[in-house]
């Protein structure tokens, strides 16, 4: 497999981390739970920011006057007047960056260690969708500040939508909530930012549904470190202040947050048609990644119906929730019968290990054969 050298590197790295942190606290082993944790930080800090944020663009005056109330002044209020407002705001921003970073690390790890194909395909595809959602939500977060950068980003997005044939104009109308930037636009941005964030939870449900007991929370040790990293960055990399967006002006320079705003950089270096094509092709390649590797099809476990007692241990133990207990057929002495969903089966054999009645088997590796082999070995004269 072409990812084998990368797998080796990953294993080596994890070995060193195990030596320091032990496998109980190794962050690599919680690679999926890390972005989930940052999502909770984002929800909490976002909720606090939401309490004071005002989604309007009114700027009858070009400078901040004490009477002006709009998105930018509300953000300034949070930053400068509310105690710890600046920390919460910076936490929110850097948690977003951290989430993208940990998602990418998570993606790389499942790719390198070959955990993204066949029976894991739903997890992978939903993960690609989630990544796209998270990136877009982060961008809307930058629009919400409504400073000069936000204005430039909004205008660039509109230009980008213009370049899409057929549906481009409708997208732009949806994006601006009208034909030009108004208060409705910013209210739309807020709706997208918060609404899509909650739809992430739905996407995460799909991401988790094919696993039993998904690991969604790192242990407290790791959580403290995650928050400590955020707070450290908050303290050492203060948020820069900026100027309010002025619809009559066209600023040309702004700071780019590479985690979220790399598409805008791309827009500046290539024609828009090529930009959309790159994004599309990139997404398709990502989605098709699991199909580039061809290995043996998984032979799903099979239940031996006349031996199954309905004890449910296999169903409880199956890591991929591939076994369902159904009512036993009429005439059976038992109440339940195990059935396997072959499209979920990974061929791991945990069900075989759980069964005390020899009632479930992997077709290509019968446990009776294995037991025979073990006995043969145990009896060989040296």
């Amino acid at each position: 497999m072409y990812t084998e050298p990368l797998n080796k590197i990953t294993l080596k790295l994890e070995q060193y981390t195990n030596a320091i942190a032990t496998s109980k606290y190794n962050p690599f082993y919680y690679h999926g739970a890390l972005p989930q944790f940052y999502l909770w930080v984002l929800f909490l800090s976002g909720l606090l920011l939401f309490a004071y944020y005002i989604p309007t663009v009114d700027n009858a005056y070009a400078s901040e006057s004490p009477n002006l109330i709009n998105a930018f002044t509300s953000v300034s209020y949070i930053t400068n007047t509310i105690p710890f407002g600046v920390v919460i705001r910076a936490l929110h921003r850097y948690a977003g960056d951290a989430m993208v970073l940990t998602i990418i690390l998570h993606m790389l790890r499942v790719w390198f260690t070959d955990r993204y194909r066949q029976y894991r395909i739903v997890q992978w595809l939903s993960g690609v969708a989630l990544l796209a959602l998270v990136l877009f939500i982060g961008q809307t977060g930058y629009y919400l500040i409504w400073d000069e950068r936000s204005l430039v980003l909004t205008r660039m997005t509109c230009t980008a939508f213009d370049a899409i044939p057929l549906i481009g104009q409708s997208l732009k109308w949806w994006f601006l909530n009208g034909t030009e930037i108004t208060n409705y636009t910013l209210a739309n941005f807020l709706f997208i930012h918060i609404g899509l964030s909650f739809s992430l939870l739905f996407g995460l449900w799909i991401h988790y549904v094919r696993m039993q007991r998904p690991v969604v929370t790192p242990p407290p040790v790791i959580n403290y470190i995650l928050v400590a990293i955020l707070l450290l960055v908050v303290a050492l990399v203060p948020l820069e202040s900026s100027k309010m967006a002025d619809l009559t002006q066209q600023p040309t320079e702004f700071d780019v947050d590479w985690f979220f705003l790399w598409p805008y950089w791309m827009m500046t270096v290539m024609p828009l048609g090529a930009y959309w094509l790159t994004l599309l092709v990139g997404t398709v390649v990502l989605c098709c990644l699991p199909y580039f590797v061809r290995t043996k099809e998984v032979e799903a476990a099979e239940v031996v119906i006349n031996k199954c007692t309905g004890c449910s241990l296999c169903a409880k133990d199956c890591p991929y929730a591939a076994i369902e207990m159904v009512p036993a057929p009429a005439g059976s002495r038992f109440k339940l019968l195990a059935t396997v969903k072959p499209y979920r089966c990974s061929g791991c054999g945990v069900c075989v290990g759980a069964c005390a009645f020899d009632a479930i088997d992997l077709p290509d590796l019968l446990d009776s054969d294995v037991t025979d082999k073990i006995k043969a070995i145990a009896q060989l004269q040296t």
Partner: protein
Amino acid sequence: MADTNGKVVTLICERAVDLDQHLDEQGRLKDEPNVSVVKFPCSGMIQPLMIEAAMKAGASGVIVCGCQLGDCYYREGNKMIRERLLGQRPPGLKKTVDRRRVIALWLARPQIARFLAETKEFVGVLKELGPVEAPQPAKPATAPAAAKPPAAEKTEPGKEPPAQKAEPAKAPAAEKAEKKEPAPAEATPKPEAAKDKGASKEATSPSEVKQTGSSPDTQTESKQES
């Protein structure tokens, strides 16, 4: 029949320690020829019955090896077998199995040196423990007192866990015949019988042999097949 041969069976998953370079063509460790390796797709597939079968067939010890805890390729397999061995998850290891002869290792693919070191240490420990009593089918327990079990284990043969009774007697598989031998109270803990750790079922009173009818025959049969 089988004698004190010091065989150690290693039940290892394909993605744990990468032993391919260290095995000869019969699946034995080059460094320790007494240790043979049986591979599984996941350590979660290991049934405690297999460990019992190994001990009963005369193995000196069993090593279970899976991936690092938290890094099972199939998510939970190593956790499952670990809990089964510790008695925290059904099905469990029968009480007749000497716990000192079973260890579990959770090692990642590159940790070959660690595996070999642990195996060497375990083989040493097994040597100290002494030979295993070989299974003696249909014979009263007059086997020589080679091993000296701790006092606690004397009551083992009489106390088969009730769960075993639930196992359907109809299971046709001959290999599972050992399981079928119910542990009724008749297996009174004679002091001589107590010596047999892994061999308790075979060293039973004649009455038990009669009850289970064909099982000793199939027992012998299966042993001859092996």
